[in-house]
Protein backbone atom coordinates (compact mmCIF):
# COMPACT_ATOMS: atom_id res chain seq x y z
CA UNK A 1 0.00 0.00 0.00
CA UNK A 2 1.33 3.36 -1.00
CA UNK A 3 0.72 6.03 1.59
CA UNK A 4 1.66 8.82 -0.80
CA UNK A 5 -1.17 7.75 -3.05
CA UNK A 6 -3.63 7.89 -0.18
CA UNK A 7 -2.59 11.44 0.60
CA UNK A 8 -3.87 12.55 -2.79
CA UNK A 9 -7.23 11.13 -1.82
CA UNK A 10 -8.26 14.07 0.34
CA UNK A 11 -7.69 16.54 -2.46
CA UNK A 12 -9.52 14.39 -5.00
CA UNK A 13 -12.43 13.70 -2.68
CA UNK A 14 -12.75 17.40 -1.93
CA UNK A 15 -13.19 18.09 -5.62
CA UNK A 16 -15.65 15.25 -5.98
CA UNK A 17 -17.74 16.47 -3.05
CA UNK A 18 -17.98 19.91 -4.62
CA UNK A 19 -19.06 18.25 -7.89
CA UNK A 20 -22.01 16.49 -6.33
CA UNK A 21 -23.90 19.65 -5.41
CA UNK A 22 -27.27 19.90 -7.10
CA UNK A 23 -28.57 22.36 -9.67
CA UNK A 24 -26.35 21.16 -12.50
CA UNK A 25 -27.31 20.74 -16.12
CA UNK A 26 -26.39 17.08 -16.26
CA UNK A 27 -26.42 14.36 -13.68
CA UNK A 28 -24.27 11.34 -14.45
CA UNK A 29 -25.15 8.15 -12.59
CA UNK A 30 -22.79 5.19 -12.64
CA UNK A 31 -24.13 1.74 -11.68
CA UNK A 32 -21.86 0.44 -8.94
CA UNK A 33 -23.35 -2.97 -8.18
CA UNK A 34 -21.41 -6.20 -7.72
CA UNK A 35 -21.61 -6.89 -11.43
CA UNK A 36 -20.85 -3.28 -12.27
CA UNK A 37 -17.72 -3.20 -10.15
CA UNK A 38 -16.58 -6.52 -11.59
CA UNK A 39 -17.08 -5.15 -15.10
CA UNK A 40 -15.02 -2.04 -14.35
CA UNK A 41 -17.60 0.57 -13.35
CA UNK A 42 -15.25 2.08 -10.78
CA UNK A 43 -12.60 2.80 -13.40
CA UNK A 44 -15.26 4.21 -15.72
CA UNK A 45 -16.30 6.61 -12.97
CA UNK A 46 -12.77 7.79 -12.17
CA UNK A 47 -12.02 8.23 -15.87
CA UNK A 48 -15.11 10.38 -16.28
CA UNK A 49 -14.19 12.47 -13.23
CA UNK A 50 -10.67 13.02 -14.59
CA UNK A 51 -11.98 13.89 -18.03
CA UNK A 52 -14.62 16.30 -16.67
CA UNK A 53 -11.87 18.05 -14.75
CA UNK A 54 -9.49 18.07 -17.71
CA UNK A 55 -12.08 19.60 -20.02
CA UNK A 56 -13.26 21.86 -17.18
CA UNK A 57 -16.95 21.11 -17.64
CA UNK A 58 -18.70 22.85 -14.75
CA UNK A 59 -22.32 21.89 -14.93
CA UNK A 60 -22.13 18.15 -14.25
CA UNK A 61 -22.87 16.18 -11.12
CA UNK A 62 -21.43 12.66 -10.91
CA UNK A 63 -22.91 10.11 -8.57
CA UNK A 64 -23.15 6.40 -7.99
CA UNK A 65 -26.04 4.03 -7.55
CA UNK A 66 -26.63 0.29 -7.16
CA UNK A 67 -28.06 -1.81 -9.94
CA UNK A 68 -29.50 0.02 -12.94
CA UNK A 69 -30.72 -3.23 -14.49
CA UNK A 70 -29.52 -5.17 -17.52
CA UNK A 71 -26.58 -6.78 -15.82
CA UNK A 72 -25.17 -8.09 -19.10
CA UNK A 73 -24.66 -4.53 -20.31
CA UNK A 74 -22.46 -3.45 -17.36
CA UNK A 75 -20.70 -1.10 -16.85
CA UNK A 76 -23.69 1.19 -17.25
CA UNK A 77 -23.85 4.97 -17.14
CA UNK A 78 -27.01 7.05 -17.12
CA UNK A 79 -26.88 10.68 -18.20
CA UNK A 80 -29.83 12.71 -16.98
CA UNK A 81 -30.49 16.14 -18.35
CA UNK A 82 -32.25 18.33 -15.83
CA UNK A 83 -35.90 18.43 -16.83
CA UNK A 84 -35.13 16.52 -19.98
CA UNK A 85 -34.09 13.20 -21.38
CA UNK A 86 -32.36 10.38 -19.63
CA UNK A 87 -29.93 8.39 -21.71
CA UNK A 88 -28.64 5.01 -20.60
CA UNK A 89 -25.30 3.86 -21.94
CA UNK A 90 -24.20 0.24 -21.72
CA UNK A 91 -20.92 -1.66 -22.02
CA UNK A 92 -19.03 1.54 -21.37
CA UNK A 93 -15.27 1.06 -21.46
CA UNK A 94 -12.70 3.73 -20.66
CA UNK A 95 -12.71 5.02 -24.22
CA UNK A 96 -16.49 5.14 -24.14
CA UNK A 97 -16.40 7.02 -20.85
CA UNK A 98 -14.20 9.71 -22.39
CA UNK A 99 -16.47 9.86 -25.41
CA UNK A 100 -19.57 10.40 -23.27
CA UNK A 101 -17.82 13.30 -21.52
CA UNK A 102 -16.51 14.98 -24.68
CA UNK A 103 -19.61 14.40 -26.83
CA UNK A 104 -22.64 14.32 -24.55
CA UNK A 105 -21.59 16.40 -21.56
CA UNK A 106 -19.47 18.88 -23.46
CA UNK A 107 -21.42 19.29 -26.71
CA UNK A 108 -24.84 17.86 -25.84
CA UNK A 109 -24.54 15.23 -28.56
CA UNK A 110 -25.53 11.69 -27.64
CA UNK A 111 -23.12 8.86 -28.24
CA UNK A 112 -25.50 6.73 -30.28
CA UNK A 113 -23.39 3.62 -30.56
CA UNK A 114 -23.25 3.18 -26.78
CA UNK A 115 -26.85 4.09 -25.97
CA UNK A 116 -29.13 1.24 -24.90
CA UNK A 117 -32.23 3.26 -24.15
CA UNK A 118 -33.80 6.67 -23.74
CA UNK A 119 -36.71 7.89 -21.69
CA UNK A 120 -38.38 11.24 -21.50
CA UNK A 121 -38.67 12.59 -18.00
CA UNK A 122 -42.28 12.36 -16.87
CA UNK A 123 -42.23 15.70 -15.11
Amino acid sequence: MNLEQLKQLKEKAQKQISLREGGKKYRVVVGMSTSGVAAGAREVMTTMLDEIEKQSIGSVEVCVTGEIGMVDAEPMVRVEETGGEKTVYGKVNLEGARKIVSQHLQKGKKVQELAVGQTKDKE
Partner: protein
Amino acid sequence: MFEELSQHILDIAMNSLSANATKVQISILESRRHDRLVLRVRDDGCGMDAAMLKRVLANRWSSKSKRRKAIGLGLAFLRQTSEMCDGRFQVRSVPGRGTSVTASMRLSHIDRPPLGDLNATILALCSADKKTDVQLNYRSDGEKFVFDSRDLAKKG
Protein backbone atom coordinates in the same frame (compact mmCIF):
# COMPACT_ATOMS: atom_id res chain seq x y z
CA MET B 1 -14.51 -12.19 -9.36
CA PHE B 2 -12.73 -9.07 -8.25
CA GLU B 3 -9.08 -8.54 -8.96
CA GLU B 4 -8.49 -6.07 -6.16
CA LEU B 5 -9.40 -6.00 -2.49
CA SER B 6 -10.51 -2.39 -2.90
CA GLN B 7 -13.20 -3.61 -5.30
CA HIS B 8 -14.45 -5.97 -2.60
CA ILE B 9 -14.51 -3.05 -0.18
CA LEU B 10 -16.55 -0.94 -2.59
CA ASP B 11 -18.97 -3.77 -3.15
CA ILE B 12 -19.50 -4.47 0.56
CA ALA B 13 -19.77 -0.78 1.40
CA MET B 14 -22.45 -0.33 -1.28
CA ASN B 15 -24.51 -2.79 0.79
CA SER B 16 -24.12 -0.45 3.75
CA LEU B 17 -25.51 2.40 1.68
CA SER B 18 -28.48 0.25 0.65
CA ALA B 19 -29.05 -0.34 4.35
CA ASN B 20 -29.46 3.43 4.80
CA ALA B 21 -26.32 3.82 6.85
CA THR B 22 -25.35 7.32 7.92
CA LYS B 23 -21.80 6.24 8.59
CA VAL B 24 -19.59 3.67 6.89
CA GLN B 25 -16.28 2.90 8.55
CA ILE B 26 -13.68 1.04 6.53
CA SER B 27 -10.64 -0.20 8.36
CA ILE B 28 -7.64 -1.86 6.83
CA LEU B 29 -4.89 -3.33 8.93
CA GLU B 30 -1.84 -4.54 7.12
CA SER B 31 0.83 -6.13 9.29
CA ARG B 32 3.98 -7.62 7.88
CA ARG B 33 5.12 -8.56 11.35
CA HIS B 34 2.07 -10.76 11.89
CA ASP B 35 1.73 -11.60 8.20
CA ARG B 36 -1.90 -10.56 8.33
CA LEU B 37 -4.29 -8.34 6.43
CA VAL B 38 -7.63 -7.50 8.00
CA LEU B 39 -10.44 -5.65 6.26
CA ARG B 40 -13.52 -4.42 8.07
CA VAL B 41 -16.55 -2.56 6.81
CA ARG B 42 -18.83 -1.40 9.59
CA ASP B 43 -22.04 0.57 9.23
CA ASP B 44 -24.90 1.88 11.33
CA GLY B 45 -27.55 0.84 8.81
CA CYS B 46 -30.71 -1.16 9.32
CA GLY B 47 -28.91 -4.43 10.12
CA MET B 48 -30.20 -7.95 9.65
CA ASP B 49 -31.81 -10.52 11.90
CA ALA B 50 -30.39 -14.03 12.26
CA ALA B 51 -32.63 -15.58 9.61
CA MET B 52 -31.77 -12.95 7.03
CA LEU B 53 -28.10 -13.17 7.84
CA LYS B 54 -28.19 -16.89 7.19
CA ARG B 55 -29.83 -16.36 3.82
CA VAL B 56 -27.41 -13.61 2.91
CA LEU B 57 -24.46 -15.88 3.51
CA ALA B 58 -25.91 -18.56 1.31
CA ASN B 59 -24.87 -17.99 -2.28
CA ARG B 60 -26.96 -15.98 -4.65
CA TRP B 61 -29.35 -14.45 -2.19
CA SER B 62 -30.06 -10.77 -2.33
CA SER B 63 -32.65 -8.44 -0.84
CA LYS B 64 -33.32 -7.38 -4.41
CA SER B 65 -33.75 -10.86 -5.86
CA LYS B 66 -37.50 -10.46 -6.20
CA ARG B 67 -36.90 -7.85 -8.83
CA ARG B 68 -34.55 -10.20 -10.65
CA LYS B 69 -31.99 -7.50 -10.78
CA ALA B 70 -29.36 -8.56 -8.33
CA ILE B 71 -26.63 -11.14 -8.33
CA GLY B 72 -26.26 -11.69 -4.59
CA LEU B 73 -22.65 -12.76 -4.69
CA GLY B 74 -20.87 -9.84 -3.04
CA LEU B 75 -20.37 -11.38 0.39
CA ALA B 76 -19.73 -14.82 -1.11
CA PHE B 77 -16.91 -13.37 -3.22
CA LEU B 78 -15.20 -11.82 -0.22
CA ARG B 79 -15.64 -14.98 1.81
CA GLN B 80 -14.08 -17.03 -0.95
CA THR B 81 -11.13 -14.66 -1.25
CA SER B 82 -10.45 -14.59 2.46
CA GLU B 83 -10.79 -18.34 2.98
CA MET B 84 -8.62 -19.00 -0.03
CA CYS B 85 -5.90 -16.90 1.61
CA ASP B 86 -5.87 -18.67 5.00
CA GLY B 87 -8.16 -16.09 6.51
CA ARG B 88 -11.44 -15.88 8.32
CA PHE B 89 -14.66 -14.25 7.31
CA GLN B 90 -17.28 -12.97 9.67
CA VAL B 91 -20.49 -10.99 9.46
CA ARG B 92 -22.08 -9.58 12.57
CA SER B 93 -25.35 -7.77 12.43
CA VAL B 94 -27.91 -6.38 14.85
CA PRO B 95 -31.29 -5.27 13.48
CA GLY B 96 -31.61 -1.52 13.82
CA ARG B 97 -28.00 -1.09 14.90
CA GLY B 98 -25.87 -2.00 11.90
CA THR B 99 -23.65 -4.57 10.30
CA SER B 100 -19.97 -5.35 10.44
CA VAL B 101 -18.17 -7.46 7.86
CA THR B 102 -14.66 -8.63 8.67
CA ALA B 103 -12.34 -10.55 6.39
CA SER B 104 -8.78 -11.50 7.18
CA MET B 105 -6.06 -12.93 4.98
CA ARG B 106 -2.49 -14.08 5.17
CA LEU B 107 -0.63 -11.07 3.82
CA SER B 108 2.03 -13.12 2.05
CA HIS B 109 -0.40 -15.65 0.58
CA ILE B 110 0.27 -16.11 -3.12
CA ASP B 111 -3.42 -15.77 -3.96
CA ARG B 112 -4.01 -12.65 -1.92
CA PRO B 113 -5.25 -9.94 -4.30
CA PRO B 114 -3.54 -6.54 -4.09
CA LEU B 115 -5.36 -3.74 -2.30
CA GLY B 116 -5.48 -1.90 -5.59
CA ASP B 117 -6.93 1.52 -6.18
CA LEU B 118 -8.32 2.39 -2.78
CA ASN B 119 -8.67 6.03 -3.79
CA ALA B 120 -11.11 5.14 -6.56
CA THR B 121 -13.16 3.08 -4.11
CA ILE B 122 -13.42 5.90 -1.58
CA LEU B 123 -14.20 8.42 -4.32
CA ALA B 124 -17.00 6.22 -5.62
CA LEU B 125 -18.43 5.86 -2.12
CA CYS B 126 -18.27 9.61 -1.54
CA SER B 127 -20.29 10.08 -4.73
CA ALA B 128 -22.93 7.59 -3.75
CA ASP B 129 -24.84 9.39 -1.05
CA LYS B 130 -24.45 12.88 0.30
CA LYS B 131 -25.93 11.94 3.64
CA THR B 132 -23.52 9.13 4.34
CA ASP B 133 -20.25 9.79 6.08
CA VAL B 134 -17.41 7.67 4.68
CA GLN B 135 -14.44 6.98 6.92
CA LEU B 136 -11.24 5.16 6.14
CA ASN B 137 -8.73 3.95 8.67
CA TYR B 138 -5.60 2.47 7.24
CA ARG B 139 -2.91 1.09 9.48
CA SER B 140 0.25 -0.85 8.78
CA ASP B 141 3.21 -1.68 11.00
CA GLY B 142 4.48 1.86 11.21
CA GLU B 143 2.08 3.95 9.19
CA LYS B 144 -1.36 5.35 9.65
CA PHE B 145 -3.83 7.17 7.44
CA VAL B 146 -7.24 8.52 8.36
CA PHE B 147 -9.87 9.86 6.01
CA ASP B 148 -13.30 11.24 6.84
CA SER B 149 -15.61 12.61 4.18
CA ARG B 150 -17.39 14.74 6.78
CA ASP B 151 -14.25 16.83 7.35
CA LEU B 152 -14.11 17.65 3.66
CA ALA B 153 -17.79 18.55 3.43
CA LYS B 154 -17.29 21.14 6.16
CA LYS B 155 -14.44 22.81 4.34
CA GLY B 156 -16.16 22.79 0.97
